[in-house]
Structure formats: structure tokens, C-alpha cells
């Protein structure tokens, strides 16, 4: 019964006369063509039916990750709002269109997440001198711009992407321009195995980190893949991206930029040096992924330095 490929015992057709062989072959051919085309047809139908749903899921995931980095959403999936310099659980108020603190933890629904994203996150562009433009001013279509550049990242473009985090105000109350409470910069780089993509949210002083997320990576499961874990990402909170000098002051124009993932523990590597404020603990067994992450922050943020400088200067002298 068992016929193995490459084995000697091939089907009986070998002994048959050539005419039968020919009809046998065409029967086989027809069989395979029918099988393959029916499978292909089913899959094509399925793929086109599920496509919008998949795009939606991907979009929702990206929005979620951005909001987690901006501390609008917790990694567990409930909204956060700033209260007395602390982030507390919140719910979305449909009536006022704002987030209000809530004593109980309520998981956010996906339509609420997309709505809050619409209200609180505003993408805009910055050039190499740090000037900012809206998408309308430059006549660029956001969806096309994202689609075209998402693979190679935005840092090398003449017009780079930044997201502004708007304050928790009702949209009706916003008159004219509002000052963002922070900015989210898309980060990309190379991990150990493949490209990694994430977000870094920075406070309006252009220096202090609100949070970070890595939403697309294919690092080693259990080791490098831990960069996508909230437990590691929370280490970044309140770090500064402009490295402090030996005296503890920052020279914004020239200081090295980025966040260093050290090998081991920050307290062991830098002790009480001011450099510790721009470094996080590495993941054991993921040194190369850590280096990839360090390089990604450094390379991308360096390109955004003019913008960050401008943000910083406006913030200290309004």
C-alpha cells in the first residue's frame, strides 16, 4: 500500500502499455489542476473577504501600541489619565469626549480606542531644521505617506513623521492651536534577526521619556522578544534622551542622544553617574537585541535632534 517517493516500488503504470500510460498521465494532470485551482479559488475568496478585517486589526494594534507608549492606554488595555503627576485608570466619556478618572478598571473597547486616538493623537511633519508642518500644509496624504514609508522608517525623509499628544480636552473646547503635552516619534532599526519597529513618547520638554513600545519584531522568543513586554518597556519611563554630562547638566546641542540598553544592570555599569539617567537594564541573553535597540534609538533620534531642540527651547522660554 505504501509507495515512497524515490523508492523502487512505483505504481503499476510502469508495466502498462504506452497508450494507457498517456491517458493515466492526463488524468493525473487534470486531477492536480482541479485540486490546485479549487484550493486557490477558496483561498482567494477567503483572503478578499477577510482583508478589511485584517487591515482593521493591524491598524487597531498600531494605534494601541502608540497610545501605550504615550501612556494614554495601559498595556493591560484600560485608558490612563494624568492626575497629580500620576497615571490613573480612566474611562472614555462619550458625552464630553474626554477621558475621566475612574475608580474601577474598565477595559477599553476597540471603537473607543480608535476614537480617543482620533482626538488625542495628531500626526504632523518636521523637516531637517526642526520646522513643523501639518499634512494639509504640505499637501501630503497621510495614509499614502504611512504606507509608502513604513518599511524603511521616517527618520531619513526630508519630512519626518511625529505624533503630537494633545491634552485631555474636549474637542469642542479646543480653540485654535493647543500645546501638545508630548510627542511620539516612530522608531525603527535592526534587531538580531530582522527589522524592529516601535514608538518613543517624549514629554513636551523634548527630553523626558513618557514610554516606549516595540510593536513589530521577530527576535528570539523568550529572550530578545521580551523587548515587546510591558515589564521591560516600563523601565524607560522618566529616562532622558539627551545624555547628561559628567556634572549632571545637559548640553542639548552636542550631547549624545538616545537611550542605552546596557549589558547587565544600569546600577552595576554606571553606578551613580548621570549617564544612568539615559540607560536601562539589558535583558539577560539578549545582548545583541539590546544593541540593536540602542542603535535604533540613537540613529533615529539623532535625525530628530533639530525638532527636539526646538521643542525644548520653546518649552523653557515660552
Amino acid at each position, binding site marked *: 500500500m505504501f509507495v515512497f517517493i524515490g523508492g523502487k516500488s512505483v505504481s503499476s503504470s510502469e508495466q502498462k502499455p504506452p497508450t494507457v500510460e498517456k491517458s493515466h498521465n492526463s488524468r493525473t494532470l487534470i486531477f492536480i489542476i482541479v*485540486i*490546485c485551482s479549487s*484550493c486557490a479559488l*477558496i483561498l482567494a475568496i477567503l483572503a478578499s473577504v*477577510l482583508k478589511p*478585517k*485584517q487591515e482593521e486589526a493591524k491598524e*487597531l494594534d498600531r494605534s494601541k501600541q502608540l497610545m501605550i507608549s504615550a501612556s494614554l492606554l495601559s498595556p493591560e488595555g484600560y485608558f490612563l489619565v494624568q492626575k497629580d503627576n500620576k497615571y490613573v485608570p480612566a474611562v472614555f466619556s462619550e458625552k464630553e469626549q474626554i477621558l475621566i478618572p475612574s475608580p474601577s478598571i474598565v477595559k477599553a473597547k476597540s471603537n473607543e480606542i480608535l476614537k480617543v486616538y482620533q482626538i488625542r493623537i495628531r500626526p504632523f511633519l518636521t523637516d531637517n531644521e526642526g520646522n513643523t508642518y501639518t499634512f494639509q500644509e504640505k499637501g501630503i496624504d497621510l495614509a499614502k505617506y504611512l504606507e509608502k514609508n513604513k518599511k524603511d522608517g521616517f527618520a531619513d525623509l526630508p519630512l519626518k513623521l511625529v505624533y503630537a499628544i494633545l491634552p485631555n480636552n474636549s474637542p469642542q473646547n479646543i480653540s485654535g492651536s493647543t500645546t501638545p503635552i508630548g510627542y511620539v516619534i516612530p522608531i525603527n532599526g535592526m534587531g538580531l534577526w530582522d527589522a524592529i519597529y516601535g514608538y518613543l513618547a517624549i514629554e513636551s520638554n523634548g527630553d523626558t521619556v513618557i514610554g516606549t513600545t516595540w510593536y513589530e519584531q521577530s527576535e528570539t522568543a*523568550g529572550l530578545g522578544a521580551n523587548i515587546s513586554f510591558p515589564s521591560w518597556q516600563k523601565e524607560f519611563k522618566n529616562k532622558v534622551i539627551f545624555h547628561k554630562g559628567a556634572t549632571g547638566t545637559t548640553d542639548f546641542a552636542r550631547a549624545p542622544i538616545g537611550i542605552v540598553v546596557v549589558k547587565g544592570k544600569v546600577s552595576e555599569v554606571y553606578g551613580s553617574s548621570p549617564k544612568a539617567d539615559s540607560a536601562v537594564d539589558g535583558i539577560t541573553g539578549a545582548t545583541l537585541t539590546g544593541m540593536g535597540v540602542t542603535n535604533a534609538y540613537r540613529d533615529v533620534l539623532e535625525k530628530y535632534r533639530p525638532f527636539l531642540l526646538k521643542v525644548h527651547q520653546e518649552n523653557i522660554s515660552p
Partner: protein
Amino acid sequence: MTKPYKAYFLDPLWRNNQILVAILGICSALAVTVKVQVALTMAIAVSFVTAFSSFFVSLIRKITPDNVRMIAQLAIISMFVIIVDQFLKAFFFEMSKVLSVFVGLIITNCLVMGRAESMAKNVPPIPAFLDGLAAGMGYGYVIISVGAIREIFGFGSFFGFQIIPTFFYATPQNPSAYVNFGLMPLAPAAFFILGGFIWIANIINQKRSF
């Protein structure tokens, strides 16, 4: 063949368990057993694929030319795998991110092919379906058990819930307390646990045959 349907279903669950007895489908068992939830999703996916591909392989068994039957089986299997993959991407995006390539690799899971080749092409569709489903479930409960052990000792949690209390854990002030077993999230741990399972299954099966 006069085997009752029940036998087709029960046989691959224990006596002919594809992992413990036939040692098939080991590669994916190493990769997806880091956490229980992932293992459960994989178990469901594999059961679905094995059941339905066995059913269809059996359905066309009489018209399949013998020399291309493996290609035909593979076409059917990959169709169901892609269905699962597309479905996960649309409705369980987070899970599809975790499973990533391993869903696609169900195609090469020897277990699915093994059931199609050794059972489905010889029996009618319903028994083939039951056999495939049970083979997938037999694979499923083994990887879920491995996943449970690895998650409990490697992360201190079960199904994502912390079960080892956080105050047990070592802190900078109390460095000699409990720490997670660092080997557990790595693939070799699955090898050891699986080896242990197969050993136990062998002992039980041997006792039974006397």
C-alpha cells in the same frame, strides 16, 4: 473494516498518541509551548487542520492517482493552514503576532501528513475526520501540559495570571528568594519535559501490554 467510530477517535488520543508514541510534530511542540495560551491556540489550529484535511483527503481517496497523492494531500493541508492563518490575523491579531511563523509551519508538521498518509487515504471520510481530530487533540493536550509546566516555572504564571505570589520573588533587598527558572522559556526545556512525558507514557504502555 468494522472498527467502531469510537475506536477511531480514542485510539490516537492515548494508545497511538502522535507525540508520545509516534514522536511526530516535535518541532512545533518545542516552539509554541512557552505559554499555555499559545499552546492552546496551536492545539486548536492543529486539530482543525488535521481533522478537515483528513476528511477531504479521504473524500477524494478513490479518485486520487497514487503517484501524486502526496502533492494532493499537501495542497489540501496547506489550504486549511492558510485558512487558520488568515482567520487568526483577522480576529485574533495579538495571538497571530505571537504565533507568527508557527501557524504557517503546521503545513510541515509531520503529524498532519502522517494522519493523511497512514489513515485518511485508507478509510471513509467520517472515521478519517474523527481520527484527525483526535490526533490533533492528542497533540494538543501534550503541548498544553508542556506549556503549563514551562509557564509556571519559567514565568510564575498560568494562562497569563500570576500564580506564584510576587512577594516570593527575589528583590535587591532580599536576593536569596525565589527566581524564575531561566531554562524554562528556552527550547531545550521543552525537550527535557517532552522526553519525561514520553518516558512516563512508555512505562504505562508497557505495563498495560503485560
